C-alpha cells in the first residue's frame, strides 16, 4: 500500500499542487488527495455498510441511515501543514466548493442542510448530535498544525463519479485545486439468507 502511495506521489511531486490517488493504508480503500505548500486534503472512500453501521449504532432509524449511506460518503482529512515551512492560518467554507457530475455543477450538502432534514424527519437528539459532529465542519479556521477528520456526504448515488473543486484561503490568497473522477463506493449490501 505504501509503495503504491509513494509511486502515485512521485508522479506529481514536481508540480506545486500535488494531486494523487491510491489506496489508503489504514482504511484499505481508495483515496484522492491534494498536497500543496501549507495544506493537505485527503478524501477516503467509505463503504455504504460502514456508514450504516456507524449511524445505526448512534440512534438513527434504518430509513434515515440509508439516506446517508447511499449518499456517497467520504472520510475527509484536512490539515494545515504550514508549521513545517511558512506558518499561515488556513480557512475554508464548504459552501464555496463545487461538485461536478457530467455537465451539472452544484454545492455540497452541509451540516446545516442535513440538520433541517433531520428536524423534519423527527430524528432523535442523540443521533442528530452524533451526525453533526461526525461531519466535516462547514467552515473552519486552522492554525498551523491544526486539522480535522470528518465525513463529507456528496449526495450522489452509489458508484457515481464526480469532480470536486476545493477552495481555501491561505498566505493571503485564494487557492483552488480540482480532484478529478472521484468514485463513490458501490453499495454491495447483502441481506442475510435464511436457511
Amino acid at each position, binding site marked *: 500500500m505504501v509503495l503504491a502511495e*509513494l509511486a502515485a*506521489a512521485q508522479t506529481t511531486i514536481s508540480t506545486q499542487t500535488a494531486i494523487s490517488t491510491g489506496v489508503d493504508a489504514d482504511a484499505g480503500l481508495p483515496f484522492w488527495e491534494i498536497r500543496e505548500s501549507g495544506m493537505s486534503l485527503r478524501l477516503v472512500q467509505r463503504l455504504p455498510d460502514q456508514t450504516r453501521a*456507524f449511524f445505526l449504532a448512534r440512534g438513527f432509524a434504518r430509513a434515515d441511515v440509508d439516506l446517508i449511506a447511499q449518499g456517497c460518503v467520504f472520510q475527509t482529512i484536512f490539515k494545515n501543514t504550514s508549521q*513545517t515551512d511558512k506558518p499561515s492560518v488556513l480557512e475554508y467554507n464548504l459552501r464555496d466548493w463545487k461538485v461536478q457530475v457530467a455537465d451539472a455543477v452544484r454545492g455540497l450538502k452541509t451540516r446545516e442542510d442535513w440538520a433541517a432534514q433531520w428536524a423534519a424527519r423527527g430524528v432523535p437528539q*442523540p443521533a442528530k*448530535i452524533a451526525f453533526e*459532529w461526525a461531519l466535516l465542519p462547514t467552515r473552519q479556521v486552522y492554525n498551523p*498544525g491544526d486539522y480535522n477528520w*470528518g465525513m463529507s456526504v456528496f449526495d450522489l448515488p452509489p458508484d457515481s463519479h464526480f469532480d470536486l473543486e476545493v477552495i481555501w484561503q491561505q498566505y493571503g490568497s485564494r487557492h483552488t485545486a480540482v480532484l478529478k473522477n472521484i468514485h463513490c463506493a458501490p453499495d454491495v449490501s447483502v441481506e442475510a439468507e435464511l436457511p
Partner: protein
Amino acid sequence: MSGQWNTFVVVVCAWLFAASAVTAAEQTLPELPRPIEAPNFELVDLDGGLHKLTDYRGKVVVLNFWATWCPPCRYEMPSMQRGWEAARADGIVFLGVNVGEDADSVFIFLADYSVEFPLLLDKDATVIKQYQVVGLPTTFIIDPQGRITHRVVGSREWDDAALLRELRGLLPKP
C-alpha cells in the same frame, strides 16, 4: 535496476524525512490573539461527581472536547493520560468533555484506553456550543485566571516536552 533502487531509496528517505518533520512539528499550541473569559460550566463525571470550571481557578486547565468514535480523539487520548501523569503535580488539570454520548459508551471506551483524569459528560452538546467548537477534537488551554489562552484543533502529543513546558509557563510564578 540500480537506478530504480536509487530512486526508491531517495523517495523513501524523502517520505521518512517528511513524516518525521510533520510528527515533530505538529505539537503546535496556537495562541489566541488575546485571552478571553472561559464560559463556566457544571458537568458530571462518570461517577456522578459534579465539576465546575470555577473549581479549577488558580490552575492551568487543558479542556478537551472529544467523542469515542472520533479517530483523532482516540489517537491523542493515551498522550493526554501521559501528559496528565507528568504535569498534575505542577497544578495542570486535564478535563475530557465527551460530546453527545452516555456513560456506558465511555465505559466501553475505557476498556481499551486507560484514562485516569476526569471525563465529563456533555450529553446534549450544550457546553461545546458555548465554546463555539466546530470540529472534534478541540482543546482549550485555560489559564489560572479562567481565561482561554490557546485553541488546538486536531490531536497533539500532549506529553511532548516543549508543549508541557509551554503549559507550565502559564502557571503562577512562585
